[in-house]
């Protein structure tokens, strides 16, 4: 009976694990799994892809979506040189505190500045730019384009989901009632999304000659956003291998010591 119970217990665990993903996607189909170089124990970001993704973000997404928690200096994480970062930052105009008359000063960005917000609301006391939600909603039919810094972390399905959304614009079924100003997306919960299809073939011209298909651009921008959400990933995994190895060795050593200490005990 006890063995049967233990089997039951294991079965219950397994059932729980199997059922967990099922509850997340009630209305929309599960996003098809993609291959990401940053998955797995040793996976890291494909920096060339992340850089292309940054180009896609800059030329397409950044029109509506902010990257609130990124600073230009962070771009070193996807392999941009100091000079490249300086010129990227210098290309935008950002608020720089108050002048003597109490007006907001503006100037070219530096590596220390936050990514430029499409709907900036500047707080000169904390010297922080946030999203002006009302301005953003007014420009988007009442909807608020979410900040993308943590987008890949903040959705069930993560990178696969974001990729699926970017590729999920298909013709709605004949009997589907689409509301005014909405767009049909296969993978969006409820299928009605305010964002019109953002990526079209050849929209971005890559400098390295990679063809700008929707699939390629989505893949690149998801890689970039995954990095934006988890910039520490590569360092973390590298460190993890060392620490786990360390504890494996320490376990072996302490176990040997334990055997020695206990050798003369009848137990």
């Amino acid at each position: 009976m006890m063995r049967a119970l233990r089997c039951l217990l294991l079965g219950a665990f397994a059932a729980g694990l199997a059922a967990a993903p099922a509850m997340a996607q009630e209305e929309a189909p599960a996003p098809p799994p993609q291959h990401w170089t940053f998955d797995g124990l040793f996976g890291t970001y494909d920096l060339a892809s992340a850089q292309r993704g940054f180009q896609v973000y800059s030329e397409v997404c950044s029109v509506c979506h902010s990257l609130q928690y990124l600073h230009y200096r962070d771009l070193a994480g996807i392999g941009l040189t100091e000079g490249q970062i300086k010129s990227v930052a210098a290309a935008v105009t950002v608020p720089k505190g108050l002048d003597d008359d109490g007006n907001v000063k503006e100037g070219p960005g530096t590596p220390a500045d936050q990514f430029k917000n499409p709907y900036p609301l500047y707080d000169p006391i904390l010297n922080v730019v946030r999203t002006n939600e009302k301005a953003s909603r007014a420009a988007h039919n009442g909807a608020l384009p979410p900040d993308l810094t943590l987008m890949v972390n903040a959705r069930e399905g993560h990178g696969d989901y974001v990729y699926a959304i970017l590729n999920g614009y298909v013709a709605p079924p004949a009997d589907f009632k689409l509301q005014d100003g909405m767009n049909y997306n296969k993978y969006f919960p409820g299928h009605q999304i305010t964002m019109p299809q953002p990526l079209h073939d050849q929209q971005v011209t890559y400098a390295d000659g990679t063809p700008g298909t929707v699939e390629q651009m989505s893949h690149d921008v998801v890689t970039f956003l995954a990095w934006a959400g988890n910039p520490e990933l590569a360092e973390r995994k590298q460190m993890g291998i060392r620490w786990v190895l360390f504890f494996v060795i320490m376990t072996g050593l302490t176990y040997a010591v334990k055997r020695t200490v206990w050798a003369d005990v009848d137990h």
Partner: protein
Amino acid sequence: MAEQHKSEFANPVINWIDTRLPIFTMMQKEYGTFPTPKNFNYFWNFGALAMVTLVIMIATGIFLAMNYQPNTELAFGSIQHIMRDVNYGWLIRYIHQNGASMFFIVTYIHIFRGLYYGSYKKPRELLWMIGVVILLIMMATAFMGYVLPWGQMSYWGATVITNLFSAFPIVGHPIVTWLWGGFSVDNPTLNRFFSLHYLLPFVLIGVVFLHVAALHIVGSNNPLGIDVKSPQDTLPFHPYYTVKDSVGVCVFLGIFAAVVFFAPNMLGDPNNFIPANPLQTPADIVPEWYFLPYYAILRSVPDKLLGVCMLFGSILILFVLPWLDTSPVRSARFRPIYRQIIWVWLLAVVVLGICGAHKPEGIWVLLSRVCTLYYFLHFLVILPLLGKLERPLPLPESISRPVIGGGGPMPSGAAAKPMEKA
């Protein structure tokens, strides 16, 4: 004048201190020569593991608090500041975040160890009850800690849990307003939760001290559940159990590190990467995994007040467990029926946990009701009756005896081998 304590330490500095404040003598007595049953299995590691985790949580928490902003406008961003700009901030935060889960895993195994081997029975009732207090403080601390990042699940979890108190008639709503410091979960709530989240771990240290002090008065239980009869049954804590605990600590830290470095968000909810928004309720409000069984108990009852009472009752019932279990035999090893139903109880708790993660619809409602029923039946009906009905197996004469015989109870004529260690 009181007689001066005579220290036996050779080092003159230690001797000087120890004569005036015998902390070294105390440590020697409680963690050096402390007589400990010689037959512990690795389940007896988990108390030490919990202690290690508590220290890790406090150490990382102090550094997090140096960079965290307990303000609804700034909290979420300050976490990102920690994750991105603070040196190794991501490491400190991931250790702290996953440390909470590790703390509960370790503590739940520690509690199950106590249930299986009857560690709550006389003379360890008070030791057990102090342990339940530790669990309650841990839960309060974990709950408030989860609110601090001010993500969607932080906010809505806080709203749901604090609202539980509104189920009580008359005093309910005033209590909720008082807890919130206003009329909704807001900045005053976050401020006080931060303050209490910083305070409670130190209260925890005090209660853990009492837990260990009580343990050292009555002595440890052991897998056989029988009393220590002679010095032959015990070993000095050091080096035997310091080294055995060290093995467990290394394995534990290895697993802990694997989670922190390779899957730090495995146990988290994606919704908590979205800043709290009081105007938008997430589709599912789910607590952290370690609260899921209680959440399922709460939702299994159609009446809110009764549900809340069962939720609290499911933990408070542990306080009276030493008197509900009427069997004089401690270890499940010698209780043929208890040995099986304790796994049924664990199964019920695990299924409740799974139910808690699902919307209360269809099969999950029925399952959570059946398991809730069993949870309470187990403590309130089965255990009191079982003590009277069950025929325990014959107990071994002493801890050192079955060891020589190879595990089972010994025939009464067998002679014990003289021990070299005492």
